[in-house]
């Protein structure tokens, strides 16, 4: 098609441009102002597959998770007005976690814009602060280049969501189509040699380096170089939650997640380091706690692609900007080979001292049905390559602490925005991205109730998703804060919902199990893994389970709480 020019309407230009960008799957929900676009999808269903969600939010999370597990741009389509506003949480979720996503919305005809027409909202105005960039296309002649530009912005450098708002008449009007070919990526600046030398000097002078790596490593695909870098430095590695899957959890240098709910050895050594090497991280408050105390006795080397992150949250001693793969491979050649038995040995001492923090809080004996044991039991049934999606809350932290990831991009979880309700739509997107392979969703009873309708989407498309509901009958994470900081005044966190998850699953066309012990869970997992239909396993646990360790918000590593007083 390259070089060919012919007239097409805006809807056809949109679909052809998506296809020219290699898009094979889109998620969305039709409506009045996207009728033309959906008509075009109807005629091209052999080239591009649209999956209908139950709610636009679910479709947005699906497109987001699709992008997270593949690294490709996820695409979501919604109508104007409520369709667009229902995307907002999904777009913000993608924005905070730097996911490449294109959101295409319809809008009222340009002749009606600004007149409060039916289902009209200022979509670009609403989404301006939560997109990497957005466009309102008022002229069909600019549609093709705008869409190509949107893809380029979404995937280049630090990725992010881009919204393209296309009024109905722009979908109807005709223009020349030039093939919709992808534009080259916006180039990433090459790392500055002087910065690399400063970084290498800092690293070589360090006695107790600590590698704090994040989501940027996964986005860049720099996992292998991170391992080589850590090995040549012989330095321990802690990951932010977004960094999970960037480092093999069974590697001897791996300490575990760091930060508010990080494992004790990871967070303590983070605090004791004389040099923190932040790689693809943004020093979020959940990872650092009080920034003044965080940087008081340490030097900080910040390596990232996005220069606004340097010195934004924590002032750095030195920084290197550019693509992580390029920077890490340059740095590896500049490092003195070192062995640090004493510094590494510190991890074991911390683990021995603080190990009880990661034990099951409410465990009475080895048979108690605790979250950690649930996660470990599920893990034993799963392959290393299987994708895990989570919702947000206690269950998410337990998965982050205990699941044990080994393969990059096998976790899709809402980090920055902390979006309860991400999970079910996310699981649909992740499962589609993996060609319908078995996908696991860990959720809580609070999160699941937010967007559980998307279970029907999973059934509709025959997606073999196993939903593990860590069901404590409360909004566990908020309750935990109420327990620890609000004198056990459980304001609106006791759910008391009589939901029967087995009947719910069956009513929506899936299957379900209710379990309250490890033997029951084992049996349910055997059943679920033997079946291809979406399955819910409702795991009843104690309402007072807590996530430990915990560093209170704004606290520091020395404020770590490891048990309820």
């Amino acid at each position: 098609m390259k070089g060919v020019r012919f007239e097409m309407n805006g809807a056809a230009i949109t679909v052809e441009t998506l296809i020219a960008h290699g898009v094979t799957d889109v998620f969305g929900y039709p409506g009045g102002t996207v009728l033309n676009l959906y008509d075009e999808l109807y005629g091209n269903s052999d080239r591009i597959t649209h999956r209908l969600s139950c709610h636009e939010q679910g479709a947005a999370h699906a497109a987001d998770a699709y992008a997270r597990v593949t690294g490709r741009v996820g695409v979501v389509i919604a109508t104007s007005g409520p369709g667009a506003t229902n995307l907002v949480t999904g777009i913000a979720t993608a924005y905070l976690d730097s996911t490449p996503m294109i959101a295409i919305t319809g809008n009222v005809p340009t002749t009606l814009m600004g007149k409060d027409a039916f289902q009209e909202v200022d979509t670009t105005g609403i989404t301006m602060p939560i997109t990497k960039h957005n466009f309102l296309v008022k002229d069909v002649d600019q549609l093709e280049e705008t869409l190509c530009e949107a893809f380029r912005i979404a995937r280049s450098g630090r990725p992010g969501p881009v919204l393209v708002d296309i009024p109905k008449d722009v979908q109807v009007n005709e223009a020349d189509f030039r093939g919709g070919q992808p534009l080259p990526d916006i180039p990433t600046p090459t790392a500055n040699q002087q910065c690399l030398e400063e970084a290498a000097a800092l690293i070589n002078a360090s006695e107790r380096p600590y590698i704090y790596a994040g989501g940027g490593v996964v986005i860049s695909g720099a996992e292998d170089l991170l391992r080589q870098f850590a090995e040549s430095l012989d330095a321990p590695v802690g990951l932010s939650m977004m960094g999970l899957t960037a480092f093999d959890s069974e590697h001897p240098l791996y300490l575990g997640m760091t930060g508010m709910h990080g494992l004790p050895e990871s967070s303590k050594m983070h605090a004791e380091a004389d040099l923190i090497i932040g790689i693809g991280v943004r020093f979020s408050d959940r990872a650092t706690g009080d920034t003044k105390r965080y940087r008081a006795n340490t030097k900080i080397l910040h390596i990232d692609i996005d220069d606004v992150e340097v010195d934004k949250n924590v002032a750095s001693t030195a920084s290197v900007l550019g693509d992580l793969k390029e920077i890490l491979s340059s740095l590896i050649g500049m490092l003195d080979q070192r062995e640090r038995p004493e510094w590494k040995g510190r991890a074991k001492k911390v683990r021995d001292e603080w190990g009880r923090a990661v034990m099951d809080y409410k465990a009475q004996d080895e048979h108690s049905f605790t979250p950690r044991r649930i996660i470990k039991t599920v893990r034993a049934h799963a392959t290393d390559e299987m994708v895990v999606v989570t919702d947000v809350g206690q269950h998410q932290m337990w998965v982050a602490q205990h699941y044990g990831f080994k393969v990059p991009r096998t976790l899709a979880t809402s980090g920055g925005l902390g979006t309860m309700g991400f999970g079910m739509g996310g699981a649909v997107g992740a499962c589609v991205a993996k060609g319908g392979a078995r996908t696991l969703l860990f959720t809580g009873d609070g999160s699941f109730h937010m967007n559980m309708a998307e279970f029907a989407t999973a059934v509709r498309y025959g997606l073999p998703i196993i939903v593990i509901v860590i069901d404590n009958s409360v909004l566990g994470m908020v309750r935990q804060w109420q327990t620890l900081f609000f004198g056990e005044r459980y304001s609106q966190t006791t759910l008391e919902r009589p939901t029967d998850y087995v009947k719910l699953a069956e009513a929506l066309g899936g299957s379900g199990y209710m379990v309250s012990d490890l033997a029951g869970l084992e049996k349910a997992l055997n059943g679920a893994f033997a079946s291809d239909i979406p399955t819910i396993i409702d795991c009843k646990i104690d309402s007072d389970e807590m996530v430990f360790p915990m560093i209170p918000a704004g606290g520091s590593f020395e404020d770590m709480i490891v048990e309820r007083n």
Partner: protein
Amino acid sequence: MISTDTIQHFTISIIVVNRAGALSRITGLFSKRGYNIDTLTVGPMAERPGYSRLILASSGDEATKAQIIKQLRKLVDVAEAKTI
């Protein structure tokens, strides 16, 4: 990085593509990130058709000033941002 808590006043020159919403992106950035706008003037550039120049007076410490410039440069519609 130079870190000082001293509040200073500074002026920024921004060249922005003449596109609907471009000014809103800049003012939105300032409100979203909690930066001050003391004064703001804007007009088309005779020497560069299709672009406008904004002169913006702001205040903050050294770190804030550096962040403002970097955040502005990150906006897709901003062609240039510097303190003058």
